[in-house]
């Protein structure tokens, strides 16, 4: 049991590739890391990062923060609350739509469901293209259909998140445990059954987390909802930043933070209800 019993030299002779792995295998990982960092350093230099400027500026960093204290909504609190509610409902609806449409498509993009590279390729490229088209463009496209207003925002969010969900869901599905799927297959289940009973229970917490994250993200970001003329909290925030009303800015950020924390809380509850409580490290 102890090393004394076995002569290391003899072991070494018997398993040369365990003890003396070829340089190519040993160095591949470090080489990749070094390359990644070299590119990072090159980027930092190219982008005019200078430590001196960085440290000189550090002292100034707190300045705007000080202007933000104390957060103060002025007299606009009811408007802000309403705007937050609007944004939340647009984000909720848009993201849900995106998820509902993305789920079936993501199955077609997952390797463990469609093994054929030839069939998957167009689906993945389709999703890529949708993501590649800027959300601003989707907003303009939908304005041509349904006019300016929150509905256009819902549709624009739905389309652009559809592209992201399609990719993320399919990758979650690829990471699922095949054993459970095999259990269903072996009892004569159809592919539909394998997905419904073998895959979905496994990927549901991942998908739930992603959907809630996108709802959160759409609540935070101003772009689409503001552009299509649906107002919302993002518009208010952009406006206060533009006119440099720092106390209102910080108040709005606090409000959004609370909403984000609430979504985070729900997300945690929901996912753990699906995952089930486990031993905690």
């Amino acid at each position: 049991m102890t090393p004394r019993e076995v002569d290391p030299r003899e072991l070494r002779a018997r398993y040369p590739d365990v003890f003396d792995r070829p340089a190519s295998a040993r160095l591949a990982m470090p080489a990749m890391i070094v390359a990644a960092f070299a590119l990072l350093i090159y980027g930092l230099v190219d982008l005019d990062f200078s430590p001196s400027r960085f440290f000189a500026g550090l002292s100034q960093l707190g300045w705007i923060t000080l202007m933000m204290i104390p957060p103060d909504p002025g007299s606009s609190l009811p408007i802000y609350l309403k705007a937050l509610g609007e944004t939340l409902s647009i984000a909720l609806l848009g993201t849900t739509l995106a998820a509902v449409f993305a789920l079936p498509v993501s199955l077609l993009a997952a390797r463990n469901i469609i093994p054929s590279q030839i069939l998957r390729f167009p689906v993945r490229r389709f999703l890529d293209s949708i993501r590649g088209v800027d959300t601003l463009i989707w907003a303009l496209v939908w304005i041509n259909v349904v006019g300016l207003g929150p509905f256009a925002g819902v549709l624009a969010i739905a389309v652009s998140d559809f592209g992201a969900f399609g990719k993320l869901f399919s990758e979650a599905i690829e990471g699922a445990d095949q054993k459970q799927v095999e259990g269903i297959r072996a009892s004569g289940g159809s592919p539909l059954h394998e997905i419904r009973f073998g895959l979905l229970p496994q990927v549901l917490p991942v998908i739930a987390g992603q959907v809630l994250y996108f709802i959160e993200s759409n609540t935070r970001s101003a772009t689409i909802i503001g552009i299509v003329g649906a107002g919302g909290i993002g518009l208010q925030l952009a406006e206060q930043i533009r006119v440099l009303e720092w106390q209102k800015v910080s108040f709005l950020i606090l409000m959004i933070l609370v909403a984000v924390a609430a979504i985070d809380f729900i997300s945690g509850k929901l996912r753990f209800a699906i995952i089930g409580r486990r031993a905690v490290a």
Partner: protein
Amino acid sequence: MLVVEGLTCRFGAKAAVDDASFQISPGGFVGVIGRSGAGKSTLLRSINRLVTPTEGRILFDRVDVTALRGRELRQWRARSAMIFQQFNLVGRLDVLTNVLMGRLATMPAWRSLSQVWPEQDKALAMSALEQFDIASLAAQRADQLSGGQQQRVAIARALVQQPDIILADEPIASLDPRNTKIVMDALLRINKHFGITVLCNLHSLDLARSYCDRLIGMAQGRVVFDGAPSALTDHVARELYDLEAADVMGGMPVPVPEGVPALGTAAAA
């Protein structure tokens, strides 16, 4: 009648099953024995068509199982129930639903997908659970069960398929003696009463000899023994397991070791 002809399954360069051929007549209770890594699991999995054989054919009642596709393949899988070494339950579904998975092939898709199970299927699943003493766990999630409990759920799932042949991959590995007996007796009962063929990987030679009509011994993917349990002589067993015969045949009750076995004996045996 199950006929396996020249079956070979390769993973990369390695042949997990190598040119295996045998026939099993209906109602047989056949044990598959052999060392770890001999290809027992792969053999069973390829009969259920979870692994596509690289070469060779499998026939059941004169139907070429290797050529089946789509709906017919699923029906074959439903007819050949598989019990997995690692259970392969859906951890996040409850125990009863896991057992009901065995009924999927018998009902229209809308029923199963909306989880509106027919009453008699539920009754069947519940009875199967009760038969293995775990009906009280029906509502628990499968991933919260102890090892033996999970194994019994997996066996119940296979039984409710009401299969023509059962492929059991070490069905009693994690079971205590009582449950070992319950499970093996259940397999024997459905084999003898209903004439369902059973093909069962076993590590315990004693169990294999007690329950099986016939044994198939595998080594490095090849079938090296095929015959009645009584024909499994010391010599054959020694070859199969690469062991001193006494250690294998005397069954597990190894004589209480007097001295301490040195490392060499076991490793170099």
